[in-house]
């Protein structure tokens, strides 16, 4: 009788140990996935912003890849900040700071969107090279789109 109870106790102890190992492994892999998602989120926002018709340059309605229309940037900044549009652009860009930087022929930068997460613990920055088209002079400048995502 005592031996049987002993066997059962050992059996259940082994099951509990196996479960503890399983859950510890699961939680480690969840944390790893969370890290991956944060980086992916920054890249996704960068890609979404670069494709917004509010900023993109188009010629005869054909989009130019990684090109922002310099004449649209200031009005886009105003549009993103308007209360009635806040929800839409927050869902697109989340808690982030988005800047357009001119690199050549001159240096300048414009912040087009800014929403900080209160008490954020992490921020990931993603940058892509862009061209900035000026339709008045019909010329292109070189620049960078910088997206800083808070989490």
């Amino acid at each position, binding site marked *: 009788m005592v031996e049987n109870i002993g066997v059962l106790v050992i059996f259940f102890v082994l099951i509990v140990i196996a479960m503890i190992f399983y859950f510890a492994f699961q939680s480690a892999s969840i944390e790893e996935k969370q890290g991956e998602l944060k980086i992916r989120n920054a890249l996704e926002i960068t890609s979404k912003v670069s494709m917004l018709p509010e900023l993109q340059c188009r010629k*005869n309605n054909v989009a130019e890849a990684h090109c922002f229309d310099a004449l*649209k940037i200031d009005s886009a900044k105003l549009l993103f900040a308007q209360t009635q549009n806040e929800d839409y652009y927050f869902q697109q860009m989340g808690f982030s700071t988005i800047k357009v930087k001119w690199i050549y022929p001159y240096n300048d930068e414009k912040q087009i969107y800014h929403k900080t997460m209160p008490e954020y613990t992490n921020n990931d920055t993603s940058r892509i090279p862009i061209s900035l088209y000026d339709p008045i002079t019909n010329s292109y400048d070189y620049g960078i789109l910088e997206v800083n995502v808070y989490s």
Partner: protein
Amino acid sequence: MKLIQNKKAQAEESINWVFVLIAGAVILLFFAMIIYRFGIVSEKQTDVTIVTNLNSILAGTELSSRFSTLIEDLPNDKEAYFDCNGFTIGGSTNSYQQKIVFAPSQLPLNPLRIWTLDWNMPYLVTNFVYLTSRKIQYVFVHDENSPLKSRIESIIPEDMNKLFLTDTSRTFNNCPTRYVFLDKDPVSLQDICATSTAVRINSDGTISYYSKNGNSFILEGQSNYFDDASLQAAIIADNAVYYECMMNKAFKRYKSVSYIIAERTLSLKNDPQLVQCNSHYNNDAEDLYRIVASGNFKTAFNEIKSLMTSIIGTNRQLPLYSCPTIY
């Protein structure tokens, strides 16, 4: 003494067997419960995985215009339920957020056709995403030489389960079937399916939604379409509420993009370096500001249509005077 010891040993052995039986039953019950729970969790996990993957696909497709894909490895018995806010598969729901998605309200998942079309008004506003399945049959009822028929044929996916008919005297066995009457009033049909729906699409941009009542159809609501993208949307979405709700979402995007186009046009119009161009921009910017301030797409429909024609005309003329285009 030996007899008493024997009897005690026999009794202890019996108790041991009873104990082993109870312990065995408890262990069996424990594992049976784990397997049962695992079954429920795994079913839910399948739904969640499909919902998450479908959401990722929708997010990706939303960014690429004129994209099309067929997904054939989804479970055969699963159905998705769509409304204006999002979609549900099993017990898992997902919101579209700001995506403009058109789908039948009840969609068998396998095989799933997803495609996109850019919504140009006349400048790009957003991409519309469409979903359907070969299990849904689309029956287009039209007159001979209908201009809408050739227009629809050229824009809908080739592998869509579709029929173009001028005569509807046959019996329709597919369930569900979506009837699309082109410039024609819905007629009574021999249709075995209770969930079939119908829409009348007119060349003048008006659409009427119908639901089934016996073998005939009753009018549910009326709306409008602008272009090929919204025409397809009217065919795919099977009720007026869903179509209008999505179109109002799209109209909000239209207002945002129009604001940018209006501001840009005004900057070009007032730029001292482009004095020779100023008069060629007409009043399109001012008209766009008026649209931005208007209510919904139905009330502004005629105004938008005429403004689109005007902007297209101006945009064609501008390069002739070496002036930057509006879009």
